[in-house]
């Protein structure tokens, strides 16, 4: 074994499975000769590298452990708190090593800017996924989404019904935003939500920045980066974040409530893709099959996220109905900023955000 490794100078990693399939170019389970063969090929690899999947984000802890138990494949979860761009950076830095990430879970702008790094793949349930949520070849597929929400500890602050409520004196030093909007997609959408609530739009994020400036002025804006830990400690009693992250917090804080403000409904989906240079290409593909299976979709739902096949599954009766109906109520037309709108708003934030909250 080691002799063979030494003998081959600079040889491309061998991704051919025992049954003679090149896992790295397979675009469906069919290419392996069916799911059973795919499972076998993945088990031969034995490992899967994932990155930037926080255990308390959309139920990833359970998703990972269920995958490990079902297929007896070890999942190496690297840098759980990293941002989307970190995933791409890691894939570039670790390219050619067996530590490179096999799969990505990315925010919209990072995903669309890096499609040349993805391997096209169509899961068995591909046709179930609405066309606007996937690349036609399966280069990327939206995995789960949610709405921008205000989560709060109802034991510490009065009930929140609108974005404007947060300016009240009861919220002094209590309102946190999940990340810096010039860096993190979730925080960016939070500012977008504030913009829409204050007369702005997807094209005009300025009122959102002004709102946070006002919030800072009132002494209400907390510059702590919230996560389920700070929520449990009570450091961040009010958190502007995706609704599914609020439901993760609710698991540990009984008095935690999550509202999607009806005057400003902002939606966002994450993007799932396979690294074209995945060191475990078969495992990466099996992971996709698992995520888009009924079981995987229901696990996301359990974390409060809206799985991309949710509507179809609700029709088929395969969704976990209790969880599906327990999602925060949303009224009105959701805004999903386009890539161009995101870029324009990002530039505005780069120039104005740090001034606004100083």
């Amino acid at each position, binding site marked *: 074994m080691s002799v063979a490794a030494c003998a081959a100078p600079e040889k491309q990693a061998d991704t051919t499975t025992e049954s003679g399939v090149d896992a790295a170019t397979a675009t469906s389970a069919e290419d392996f000769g069916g799911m059973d063969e795919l499972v076998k090929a993945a088990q031969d690899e034995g490992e899967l590298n994932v990155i930037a999947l926080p255990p308390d984000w959309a139920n990833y802890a359970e998703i990972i452990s269920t995958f490990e138990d079902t297929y007896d494949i070890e999942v190496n979860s690297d840098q759980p708190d990293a941002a989307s761009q970190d995933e791409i950076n890691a894939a570039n830095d670790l390219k050619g090593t067996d530590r490179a990430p096999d799969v990505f879970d*990315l*925010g919209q702008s990072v995903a669309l800017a890096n499609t040349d790094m993805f391997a096209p793949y169509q899961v068995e349930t591909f046709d179930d996924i609405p066309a606007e949520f996937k690349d036609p070849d399966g280069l990327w597929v939206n995995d789960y989404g949610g709405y921008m929400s205000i989560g709060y500890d109802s034991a510490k602050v009065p009930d929140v019904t609108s974005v404007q409520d947060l300016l009240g004196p009861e919220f002094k030093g209590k309102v946190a935003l999940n990340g810096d909007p010039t860096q*993190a997609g979730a925080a960016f959408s939070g500012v977008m939500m504030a913009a829409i609530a204050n007369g702005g739009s997807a094209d005009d994020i300025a009122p959102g920045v002004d709102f946070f400036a006002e919030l800072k002025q009132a002494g209400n*804006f*907390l510059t702590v980066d919230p996560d389920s830990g700070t929520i449990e400690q009570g450091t961040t009693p009010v958190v502007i974040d995706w609704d599914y992250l609020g439901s993760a917090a609710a698991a540990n804080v009984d008095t935690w409530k999550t509202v999607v403000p009806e005057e400003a409904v902002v939606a966002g989906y994450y993007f799932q893709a396979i690294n074209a240079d995945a060191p475990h290409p078969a495992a990466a593909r099996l992971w996709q099959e698992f995520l888009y299976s009924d079981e995987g979709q229901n696990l996301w739902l359990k974390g409060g996220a809206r799985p991309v096949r949710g509507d179809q599954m609700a029709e088929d009766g395969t969704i976990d109905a209790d969880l599906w109906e327990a999602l925060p109520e949303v009224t009105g037309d959701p805004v999903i900023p386009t890539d161009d709108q995101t870029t324009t708003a990002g530039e505005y934030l780069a120039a104005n955000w*740090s*001034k606004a909250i100083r």
Partner: protein
Amino acid sequence: MVGAFQDGDGRPTLGNLDALTSDAALSALKGSLVLSATTALIGAALGALLAYLVVSLPTQSLLRRTTLAISGVLAQFGGVVLAFAWIATIGSVGIVTKAMDSAFGVDLYGSGWLFDLPGLVVVYAYFQIPLMVIVFAPAFEGLRPQWREAAVNLGASTWDYWRHVALPLLTPAFLGALLLLFANAFAAYATAAVLVSQGQPIVPLLIRQAITSEVLLGQANVGFALALEMIVVVTLVMVAYNLLLKRTSRWMR
């Protein structure tokens, strides 16, 4: 460093250096300079005082050895651990915050100053003061008793001795240590990265934004330019430090 002069596709450009004059970059530079200068001054003043007290103790004194040993540890006690130690102490639900609130009704936490520049000043002082003790104690030790005796023999009072002999000897070492502290704070990253998540008030955090942002893509080269800016500042500080060191070392053999 080459990356500072390239655009996203590797073509040469000066555009990244232009980005250094943007509002965000300038205010981060200002934040960094203010933070480094403030914590260097606080660290140097308190550290020098502590170093003097320690060095006045007999060489074998347990207190002296303990203080120096602890300083050695604390000077390296930066980063994530330090940040969490402070959050646990004076964060919104920190031990001291709660105690002060229940005992005196004092709101130590306010609207979260710990997570902004003022918080960084306090937290940085925690490793700046011990660092000063370590680098400055040898300067006190270098003051030979003979010089004092000589001065006294020539009729000098304690004040005259300090004014004309000790202070002039110590000044270059003090300024040198001040510069070292400045550079130390200027380059610190991990502590700030944990504490401050909004607005990127200092340059290292702005570099983080440039290379990891998922909202503003293709900023990596601006990050290189910012790093270059930091290198320039630290180089200037180190050159000044070396000049001072040369001056001091004449007396410290």
